[in-house]
């Protein structure tokens, strides 16, 4: 049914929370980004998020922004995303989601985007600037191609909105742990636990938490109440500073395999 839900449930069946790792598509180049994503999966990631570089990434902090700006500057095109997703899904068992700002889907057309993502073996998409209120076209396209769609839930989301988010999502609900953009932090706010509990109460089957996770102790702490833990900035910084090997090492540390 849902590739992403199956991956998270498989982790739960092992008595742990799922480990979800983010890397930008094409960073620092296409081949390295494929190798880094595969290394991430081989070192404990159950779900991979491939971020599509975008000119106006309002939800990304400085580390991810800098990486994606570099990728755009070298002439990145959307075709690369599908090549990367196809190469990674061919080499690993991890569920592969893309994370994308809405205008990139809008420009291609939701139907074409969904078809190409499904053909590449992608599990679905996380859409940080799309709420269920504006998502009619995306949900229809995702349904038609059996893709997961992950919407964000915030500490400030009302119970009514939580219900809509839970209903519209397939795969998991992405709980924003801290009011802020992505970036490594030393402590994860207790708002995370409230978001997870509110989303579960609203009917979400799986709630994973991201934004601000950078250490194994964060992973363990959040894993105590969330179905999955999402890490982005810490992995991108590792890739930037130490290449694929550093990503492998960081992933192993975060997943508790090190």
């Amino acid at each position: 049914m849902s590739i992403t839900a199956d991956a998270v449930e498989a982790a739960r069946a092992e008595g742990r929370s799922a480990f979800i790792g983010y890397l930008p598509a094409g960073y620092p180049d296409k081949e390295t980004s494929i190798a880094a994503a595969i290394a991430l999966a081989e070192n404990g990631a159950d779900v991979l998020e491939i971020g599509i570089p975008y000119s106006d990434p309002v939800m990304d902090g400085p580390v991810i922004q800098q990486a994606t700006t570099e990728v755009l500057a070298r002439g990145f095109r959307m075709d690369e995303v599908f090549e990367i997703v196809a190469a990674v899904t061919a080499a690993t068992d991890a569920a592969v989601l893309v994370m994308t700002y809405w205008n990139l889907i809008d420009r291609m057309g939701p139907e074409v985007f969904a078809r190409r993502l499904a053909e590449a073996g992608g599990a679905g998409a996380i859409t940080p600037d799309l709420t269920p209120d504006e998502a009619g076209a995306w949900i229809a396209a995702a349904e038609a191609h059996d893709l997961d769609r992950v919407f964000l839930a915030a500490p400030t989301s009302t119970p009514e909105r939580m219900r809509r988010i839970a209903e519209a999502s397939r795969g998991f609900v992405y709980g924003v742990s801290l009011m802020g953009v992505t970036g490594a932090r030393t402590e994860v706010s207790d708002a995370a636990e409230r978001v997870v509990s509110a989303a579960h109460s609203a009917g979400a089957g799986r709630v994973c938490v991201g934004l601000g996770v950078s250490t194994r102790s964060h992973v363990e702490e959040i894993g105590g109440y969330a179905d999955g833990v999402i890490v982005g900035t810490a992995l991108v910084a590792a890739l930037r500073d130490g290449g694929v090997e550093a990503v492998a090492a960081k992933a192993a540390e975060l997943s508790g395999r090190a």
Partner: protein
Amino acid sequence: MTDSAAAGSSHRDAEGPYYGPYGGRWMPESLIAALDEVEQTFGEAREDEEFVAEYQRLCRDYTGRPSLLAEVPRFAAEQGAARILLKREDLNHTGSHKINNVLGQALLARRMGKTRLIAETGAGQHGVATATAAALMGMECMIYMGAEDTRRQALNVARMRLLGAEVVAVEHGAKTLKDAINEALRDWVATVENTHYLLGTVTGPHPFPSMVRWFHQVIGEEAREQMLAQEGRLPDAVAACVGGGSNAMGLFHAFLDDAEVALHGYEAGGDGVETGRHAAAITLGRSGVLHGARSYLMQDEDGQTLDSHSISAGLDYPSVGPEHAHLADSGRAIYEPVTDAECMTAFETLCRTEGIIPAIESAHALAGAARLSAAWTAEDPAAAAEKIIVVSLSGRGDKDVGTAAEWFDLLDAEQQEQQEQQEQQDEDEQDEDEQGDETGVQA
């Protein structure tokens, strides 16, 4: 105010979130609660007599409203036979129309219990107005401004700092208005509990387009009344520059149901739309989503936003307010590009013939009016002489004197050197700002 609003079918009834297929709220979930709060507070406040009275009192006693509607015959005579009247928003306190919206939103922020205002700014006019309102109401203030713009508009950076605001030079992307908005949104996502994002134009997620327009409607309402009182009739055309489009929406709104009044918006044509170096979103854009709204957008084949270009920092934006997109599609308003060169000719003519230095943004509207008058005159000089164009002179040009001096080569060698040294100094200051910015974003 108007006697002609036909029930249900008027453009004047548009309250958002959608304007035809445009508008909406394409925003991170983290900001939805804040947008709901703004929408609800605004909805209550506009029906609250006390709030409206307080807003009107500030407009009168602080801004100096109503602004004049004044004829510029010597300027008009150089363009053609038509008469041209200026709606003098440049005479408002802080020097532009921006103060209308800023005072309204600052009052709303206070009503919501927020203690900190943040804003983006292009030319610096909105930043100055926001810093002014923050000073007036005793609020903290942080202004995000593209690094490119802090160079072109150094005087306004100093003004904002004098007013007690912190100015952050944004070094991302094209370092202009759109990047300043990105950075302000990032700030707001993290600080929404105590902070109001005082968006400066009729773009962004609902309720900003309808709310910002509401605070600017006074421009057109006054102009319409003044025309009736001074001339005994409505104008044949009204003209305004369009970046995001707030002064244009404010002017247009009162005339939407007056079918005999043509509505003209002038976008920044930069070096010419055929060069690709422009900011004419309606002329050459296509539907897309940026900063929370669907509208016309300058984007590439993949949906990446294209860099816009204009001599005017305030119009240097690759999209436009969603209500303008809808008015363009419906044909009710006409949008055309004006190049940097045409705009600077109009700028110089107004200075020389009327003793009024306009903002370079507003000079786009002057150039548009000049074009209209010339075309009418070529067609039928006698008929053209009976026509009246009202132009929104949205801001004054003190901030643009440096740009104009460079454009017209008005400085002698020694002054040139001084100006270059000043620019170098500004850049050094920005380097310091960047370091401050870095720690701010990481927090």
